């Protein structure tokens, strides 16, 4: 179990910690760049020689915390199987699955046409919450206003009937599953303004919004906590009920993908995820089960 919680954060750890002589530092960016890019196609889990090879789930950082939870509970019930959960992003996870480096890919975006040959297993619905600072008086935003804000047409809270101050807009990085879903659900053909701040995880978006009274960003509904406030969109709040009915507009699917129809241990794990137990676990963590 301890091993599991460690693997998820492995990637973040690799990035840190070097104290070399200053002269060497000059070469480090180049080295770091290389190491990073070499790691990318290799997303997936190392196979060591043990009695039973671990099951490898790699992909979206939005799905990762939920997949870790599922794996943790599953391994508790079936100690004979080890499951490694890794991040890396939806695209990297899908790529790793295709290459056979991962048994299951986790994706927080829909598969594009070229990826449709993979088997997709929807596991849950997730909402994207538009969040502001807890002290922000705003409670509702129309979808059109939201689009105008992210397009850079509305830049001041005054235009929304608030105390005049620039809106500090936060988006996710290009290629992120959450950003991808947000662009599809909200922006349509319109591009997100380059003036927006860019953060590379749900957590850091939430951190900034929690500390900046003028910030506005979007994160997965499951990760909203008390320090930030999720806005209603067109008068519909992102509650579980509204997500289930799809009356809240910003809803997307979480997928597991595999190269071939799952068999053996992979199938057992997938069946567990889709079982009443697995689905209720996901519900407890803030998602909406796919079964209904």
């Amino acid at each position, binding site marked *: 179990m301890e091993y599991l919680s460690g693997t998820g954060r492995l*990637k973040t750890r690799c*990035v*840190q*910690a*070097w*104290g*070399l*002589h*200053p*002269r060497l*530092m*000059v*070469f*480090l*960016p*180049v*080295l*770091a*760049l*290389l190491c*990073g*890019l070499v790691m*990318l196609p290799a997303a997936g889990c190392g196979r060591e020689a043990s009695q039973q090879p671990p099951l490898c789930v790699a992909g979206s*950082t939005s799905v990762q915390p939920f997949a870790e939870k599922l794996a943790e509970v599953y391994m508790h019930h079936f100690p004979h199987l080890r499951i490694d959960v890794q*991040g*890396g*992003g*939806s*695209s*990297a996870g899908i*790529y790793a699955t295709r290459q056979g480096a991962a048994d299951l890919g986790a994706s927080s975006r829909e598969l594009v046409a070229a990826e449709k040959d993979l088997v997709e297993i929807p596991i849950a619905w997730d909402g994207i919450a538009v969040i502001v600072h807890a002290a922000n008086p705003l409670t509702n935003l129309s979808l059109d206003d939201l689009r105008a804000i992210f397009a850079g047409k509305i830049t001041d809270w005054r235009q929304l009937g608030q105390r005049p101050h*620039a809106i*500090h807009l936060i988006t996710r*990085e*290009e*290629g*992120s*599953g959450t950003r*991808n879903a947000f662009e599809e659900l909200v922006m349509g053909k319109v*591009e997100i*303004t*380059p*003036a*927006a*701040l*860019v*953060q*590379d995880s749900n957590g850091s978006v939430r*951190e*900034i919004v929690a*500390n*900046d009274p*003028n*910030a506005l960003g979007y994160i997965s509904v499951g990760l909203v906590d008390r320090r930030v406030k999720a806005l209603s969109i067109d008068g519909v709040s992102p509650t579980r009920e509204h997500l289930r009915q799809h009356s809240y507009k910003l809803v997307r699917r979480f997928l597991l993908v595999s190269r071939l129809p799952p068999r053996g241990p992979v199938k057992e794990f997938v069946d567990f995820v889709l079982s009443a137990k697995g689905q209720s676990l996901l519900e407890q963590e803030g998602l909406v089960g796919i079964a209904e």
Partner: protein
Amino acid sequence: MSREKFVERVLFLLALSSLSSLLLITVFIFLEGMPLIIETGLGNFLASSHWAPTKGHFGILAMIISSVLVTLGAMVLGVPLGLACALVLAEFSPPRLKMVLKPTLELLAGIPSVVYGFLGVLWLVPLIRDYLGGPGLSLLAAALILGIMILPTVISISIDALDAVPGPYRDGSIALGATQWQTVRRVVLPAASSGIITAVILAMGRAIGETMAVIMVAGNALKIPTSILDPVRTLTSNIALELGYASGRHREALFATGIVLFVIIMLLNLAATLLTRRK
């Protein structure tokens, strides 16, 4: 083969292997990144600031400008501070104080950059947001953090350069009636100038290549900044930020960003080498 020769050969091979890794890196980055630059056109790649790699726009102008500005900002803060520090330690302080202070300052270099970034996010960013305005995550925050991060580079190389100035230069100047400050300014500094310039250039390389701390405090927006309170994205942060999700042409575009960074850093190193060799 004599033992002497054997050792020589082994050492030679080891030296080659470290060189070959540099060669491999170079070849690898260029192979991965060049196709995209050729396809997009070098002009388009360098002179457009429209970066939307999943929609086929690959312009890195805003990031080049941001990298340059952040680095300049760091130099403005770090060089005078570092140089002053080096002068005090090399010329004006008793040797025992120097023995304590120099290693302490060099410890700064051992602090992982993520820690600098963390401190920046925790208190520098809120300070800027509350007292100066803007989102706090900004060009200014990145420049301030980097300015501190380059201090050990500037200080330790400058001290080495100042220490290398022969003692008789100083004695001669003092004997002619110059004060200590006049001696330092007219004799020691000019004699040590090439070493100090090297220190500055290496610090510049360090600043332009720093990634983690900059991602954390710079805000990473894609716009060309119009004020020091605007969020910016540097070349390095662009690569690290989008690496995890990039595939296909997007990935090539990140390698291409790496090529630009590589060329800039190589030019800086070359400049440092040439300057030291001239004297």
